[in-house]
């Protein structure tokens, strides 16, 4: 009898609908309004790579040890250096990082002994050409500059 009444009055459907209407309140909205509101990115987020420079003298922290290039599973880091005859140290000339093949696993930043290479919180990596995904030393040091839109 109860089962028949429940069937006639569609109790199961109204139970489900009550859940739907409970979440209609504006305070339950969880949608993010990107790009008007920037999302909060976690501190450890592995995004666009950056080659850190020493803030005191503006020189690169990279010691051209090639460990990141060895650690990379996709073999996408190329470090170019010359031996400085005076100091007998390696001087960094070029640094190429191909983000089109990168899977942001973070093995390169784990391998870096001087914290020069770092994956940052920047996540807007789109570009108009395939060449734009290949970061040279200048982009890596200055950081990517995504297009800013005004509303």
């Amino acid at each position, binding site marked *: 009898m109860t089962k028949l009444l429940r069937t006639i009055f569609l109790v199961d459907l109204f139970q489900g609908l*009550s859940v739907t209407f409970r979440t209609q309140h504006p305070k339950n909205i969880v949608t993010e309004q990107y790009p008007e509101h920037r999302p909060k990115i976690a501190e450890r987020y592995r995004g666009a790579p950056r080659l850190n420079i020493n803030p005191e003298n503006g020189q690169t922290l990279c010691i051209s040890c090639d460990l990141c290039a060895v650690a990379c599973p996709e073999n996408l880091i190329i470090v170019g250096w010359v031996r400085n005859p005076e100091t007998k140290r390696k001087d960094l000339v070029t640094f190429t990082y191909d983000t089109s093949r990168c899977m942001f*696993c973070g*093995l390169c930043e784990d391998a870096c002994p001087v914290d020069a290479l770092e994956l940052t919180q920047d996540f807007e990596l789109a570009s108009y050409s395939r060449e734009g995904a290949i970061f040279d030393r200048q982009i890596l040091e200055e950081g990517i500059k995504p297009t800013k839109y005004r509303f």
Partner: protein
Amino acid sequence: MAGTFLDSTELVLNMGPQHPSTHGVLRVIVKLDGERVNGTECVIGYLHRGVEKIGENRTYTMFAPYVDRMDYVAAISNGLGYCLAVEKLLNVEATPRAQAIRVVLTELNRIASHLLWLGTHALDIGAITPLFYCMREREYTLNIFEKYCGARLTTHAFRIGGLQYETYDGFEKEVEEFCDLFLPKVDEYEELLTGNRIWRERLIGVGILNEADCKAYGVTGPMLRAAGCAWDIRKALPYSGYEKYDFEVPIRQNGDTYDRYMVRMAEMRQSVRIIRQAVAAIPEGPIMAKVPKIIKPPVGEAYVSVEAPKGELGYYILSDGTTQPYRLRVRPPSFVNLQSLDKMAKGSLVADLVAIIGTIDIVLGEVDR
């Protein structure tokens, strides 16, 4: 050609690879007699990347991020299985602290995987609302992953021998908050679906696979447990300290789509139970065991299986003593479970086929590898 009272011929149709309810790029060749399915044949391989071959050309450390990309919905379970297999080769064990954190993250990932399954499965059948709710709760787990290891989906959270990252400030509190928040939400999904007559009509008695068939096909995970066999690797062959935690293996008897739904819902509640116990007792200590910088396991072989959200996930590694595996074989649960599609779909309607594909919980990245 099936015997029908009208003189009809068998119709062969392609379902997929672009069909939205095949959850990726699965192509099912369906033999139809009117609305009845006479047989199905799966064509897979659209997402084949040769992951096992890539494993032979990378060092053990380098290959770890690739395993995340097989079952990308449950990347952490994949990472755990791979790390345990290499650790078995090396004969090291992760520290107690690393093990506890691994359990917390793996169970959170199981919840995330089941939530995505529930949302898409309900969407296939016609209930759109649960998808939004499931995504909303899944976001909490993904945020925890993002804060912990810096990535949301393909996490690369574990390293061979332990963990790379220490937990962030407030990790335990956040996980416990999620547990408190999540249990009422599971009741909410059940309120929407379990009693709903359309849901019941579409699921009960559809795609029945009994225990003997499950074992014959090698089906594992929630599909096997819905058929009445309490086989769970976490209980049967405990790894990563699962024997310390008190939890039940939910089983059902009928082995139909509805029972598989009920088993997965119960599993989410059990996962919360495990997370609560694990997060309350994370021991202090180092997170990385003593592992050489260059991983060079001795000659030998190792097979380790873990209970992934979809079933038994196994890694078989054959080492020849160099820094790269000689052969690496993955036993993916989705691939094996997908074999049973033909058995389940025979004699059902086309509309039920969508429900049956959804209930297997396949991820095509893992099927094709």
